[in-house]
């Protein structure tokens, strides 16, 4: 039984713990191959506080790069925040956005959130994509 849970990346409910319905729906949809994008379309939660606090600051070297939020060009020597996707923003431009939702305003690269339900849901989404890809590879190898 433990192997089954491990393999699926699930955890058995502990004493007195209620099931996570959102997660169960995600699994249900995945298992029936009807993972619906529209379910994921409500606004994603804010970025995790610790991830935001740890966003590196860099000093601008050179010219011609604009902050995608205010559209002002960064000036030489200015200190800005850098996202993992390498996009750079003024702190006062990116912080209010990440307090609202977890993705890069330019490329939608997603930062981790502090929302457990959302994180579980996102994991299921990635798993569903991987499974789709697996099925396609299997299908192609069978029919080509």
């Amino acid at each position, binding site marked *: 039984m433990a192997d089954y849970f491990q393999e699926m990346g699930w955890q058995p409910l502990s004493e007195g713990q209620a099931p996570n319905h959102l997660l169960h729906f995600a699994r249900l949809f995945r298992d029936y191959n009807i993972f619906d994008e529209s379910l994921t379309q409500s606004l994603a939660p804010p970025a995790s506080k610790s991830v935001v606090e740890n966003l590196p600051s860099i000093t601008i070297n050179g010219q011609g790069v604009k902050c995608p*939020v205010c559209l002002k060009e960064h000036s030489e020597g200015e200190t800005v925040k850098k996202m993992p996707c390498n996009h750079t923003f003024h702190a006062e431009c990116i912080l209010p956005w990440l307090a609202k939702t977890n993705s890069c305003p330019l490329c939608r690269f997603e930062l981790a959130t502090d929302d457990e339900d959302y994180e579980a849901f996102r994991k299921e989404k990635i798993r569903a994509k991987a499974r789709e890809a697996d099925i396609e590879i299997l299908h192609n190898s069978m029919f080509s």
Partner: protein
Amino acid sequence: MANIAAQRIRREFKEVIKSEEVAKCAIKVELLNDSYTELKGEITGPPDTAYEGGTFVLEIKVPETYPFNPPKVRFITKIWHPNISSVTGAICLDILKDQWAAAMTLRTVLLSLQALLSAAEPDDPQDAVVAKQFKENIEMFQMTARHWTNVYAGGPHVNKECDDKIKRLVDMGVEEHQARVALSSYNWDIERATEQLFS
């Protein structure tokens, strides 16, 4: 208005004015007041669609929290489209709601709306009557959308039969737009439209 919103619009304004779409007359933005909170947008109907040849005017309201929240946009020009209310001009488009991102601009909004005219999403409708017609009778939908483009957006004239049916209802004392809505909603069946109008 919050400084960041006004400054942003001012910068964007220059960007849109200089963009190649403006040069091609595909999109246009105009300021309606000095505080940059209200603008008028314009898009042309995409070629090879029922909206071809039409010019569609949009109301754009910029919130204080822009660009952290999307602008509020609706069609002023009446239009027959599954994702746009034929009554209020309200738009169902994800980027104007939960898929907005702070790096999007008025230019990307106008281009997305133009794309929406090329590719309707009837499964996510704003106007249920139009969406139903789109799914059940695409030719009827095309004809109706073309007719609306002709009458309200200055597009080419296409179908005299539509005009004649509207005229018959107008002669019976029905207001012209009301007659057009009733006929459009009932696949140009004049008897059913009349029944609905006089019931």
